[in-house]
């Protein structure tokens, strides 16, 4: 046999590439954060519901934690635990989105104001990343079962987890900027 690429190197390439991709995807958030600062300064609208926002943020953190545990599970070779973990994380992420949709639906925050514009843009963009993240988590949970991820081979799960954590951090920062800072 000619030399084949060692699996480790292949995975290292994927890993590096995916991280760079996430770094690149942080640019849009940095841009909106900068605009938030320019347009709103440190103003927090009194009509913004800190309660709802906090519950959403809590859901975000919780699902991030669950996804992280799922990754630990597959590292220890527990395939079913991983699959269930990803699906649970996706459901909680979905609940967070439903809450967001509710908040948007009530229009307590008027879209035509400076704060409102930034609010809808920032929460909309992080919601969009979350939607993609949910799609990826669900897809990978199916893939994991069909191709039988193992403790050695589970790069796809790792990637899904990276993405999920990325959107969680971005969403949490948005929460801090929108409701507290």
């Amino acid at each position, binding site marked *: 046999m*000619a*030399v*084949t690429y*060692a*699996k*480790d*190197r*292949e995975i*290292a*390439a*994927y890993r*590096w*590439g995916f991280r*760079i*991709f996430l*770094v*690149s*995807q942080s*640019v*849009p958030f940095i*841009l*909106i954060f900068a*605009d938030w600062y*320019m*347009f709103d300064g440190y103003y927090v609208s009194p009509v913004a519901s800190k309660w709802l926002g906090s519950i959403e943020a809590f859901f975000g953190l919780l699902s991030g934690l669950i996804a992280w545990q799922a990754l630990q599970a597959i590292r220890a070779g527990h395939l079913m635990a991983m699959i269930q973990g990803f699906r649970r994380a996706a459901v909680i992420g979905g609940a967070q989105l439903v809450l967001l949709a509710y908040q948007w639906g009530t229009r307590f925050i008027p*879209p*035509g104001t400076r704060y409102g*514009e930034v609010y*809808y*843009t920032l929460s909309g*963009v992080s919601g969009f990343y979350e939607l993609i993240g949910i799609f990826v988590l669900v*897809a*990978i949970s*199916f*893939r*994991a*079962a*069909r*191709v*039988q*991820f193992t403790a*050695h*081979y589970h790069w*796809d799960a790792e990637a899904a987890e990276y993405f999920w954590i990325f959107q969680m951090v971005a969403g949490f920062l948005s929460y801090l900027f929108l409701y507290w800072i």
Partner: protein
Amino acid sequence: MEQQITQAEARNNPQPKVMHMAPVLRGLVWATIGFAIFDLMTVAVDPFRGRPLVTEPSVVVGWVGALIGWLMGVGGYEGVILPLFGSPSTWVEPKNWRKYFGLSTNHKVIGLQYLVTSSSIFFIAGMDAMAIRYELMQPSMHFFTYTGQYLTAVGVHGSLMMFGVGTVVLISGLGNYFVPLMIGAKETVFSRLSGIGHWLLPAGALTLIASPLLGYWDTGWRGYEPLASQDPGGMVFYYLGIFAMTLSTIIASLNLAATIIFHRARGMTWARLPLFVWGILTVSLLNLIWQPEIEMTFVMALLDKLIPFHFFDALGSPLTYLSMFWLFGHPEVYIIVLPAFALWNEIIPVMAQKNLFARDWAIIGLIFVMMLSGLVWAHHIFTNMRNSEMFPFSFFSEMISIPTGFSFMAAIGTLWRARLRFTTPTLLVLMAIFNFVIGGLTGVYLADPPVNLQVHDTFFVIAHFHYTIIGGAIFTWVAAMYYWLPKLSGRMFNDTLGKWLALWIFIGFNGTFSQMFLLGLDGMNRWVPAYPPYLKPLNYSVSLFAFFLGAGFIANAIHIWWAWVKGPKSPENPWHARTLEWLTTSPPPDDNFDGEVEVVRGFYRYDHDEPSAYLVKNPEPAE
């Protein structure tokens, strides 16, 4: 620990998909269906007065549906979605010419797809330019009926050329084809993603071409606010089209950067990495930072139109948009020329058979240009700034010419006392260097506030950036096509004819754009289809040269095409180059090298006869 991961990449499906329709056709059908579904769903939940079937918001959502349908249809469904859910991929890549018309994972196929798509865009946007020049032959409107038509023509021309040609040909096109070969790789890291990435380019270009359907837009390629927010619906397709094209560039850059870092052959150390590869690596990093920046800016501008929000319109801060655009915009211009700089220093040492002068400085120059390019953006908006704010931007803009000079220094140092072989690629590279000197120096003038405030938004600026982009980057593209033609096709062009054709575009180009400097100084404004009659003679002559130039590009394309299919067979390594792409057959086999590559020396020294690399052939399969 060596483990096969094929188990997870189930590609050898026993029952390959029987395609009933060419993937591109299926893509079009699915795109139409996707558009209809998403569009109608949107008008159902968000109806508009009079219940039209297409509204501004619905066209945006519909476009997303069309894009998804298109990407699925060209092969994304079998190639990406099925494996993502763990089913084996049923996608088979054909072995014949059909492989160019669907999703591919082979970087050479992808590179050619990019080159062909991008050349088509170059042709369309070029015909657009001819229409613009035809209109400007007379001081009053005689060709276009409405000013909006003229301005849309200008906007489509600029956007297609910047995002579909300038940013694409040297990076996604030649980069995809040659970077893996030049580093001795057999494949790229994210091949499937990269294959999908190509299909975003025609989607984006078609979107821009379709933009007049939604109403003529007036802003040109910069999408300046607050004009954009009050412009007709065509703006929407400007944002969406560029969004798709930049996404394609991001994907190509990500793939190439990862490949350069992880798939180098044995012995290909950083100190030996070819210059073109360095060029692609630096611009890939620029792309990964700045293309997402402009995408988000466009999303915000789009929200301004749809909702409407007021980020950048007259109630908000148009200047913020200007800064956000040029934060990306200036790096973008370097994204276009850095690979060209690198190519000069790739081709000249080969043609001179002489050591590359100051190789390290050439690379340092590339890296410093990359870093400084983010610090100069405001030289594009001097007219909107206070005097006191201009200085730092003026300063850095002029300083950036120092690392730029390093590339020139390497090229000129190599040429110094060289016995240069005077071939078509040599000639074109020398022309590109000449043109870029003019483009770059006028850039330094423009970065001087007193000059800038006089000539901003005149044809002087048009001449400046066409000298850098056509004169520098496009000439280098043509040079590289001739240089690599024997590799791409195994055939040779006619050198005498090639030189005459080079001269043709050189005369056409300089005739067109040198006169634009004069036009600008005489007071000819950008973005106007009509002008004071005293400018007519110069404009008339510019247009004649422009038609001559356009015909010259077509003539070069025909020559290259002819040589590609019918030219005489070329020797294995006609230029006696040392880089790795010449170590394999022409055109290269599917997996690039029939064996393992080992690099033992740098590629730019010609003062010895030792090879730079060895190809350890695979053993012949036993009969």
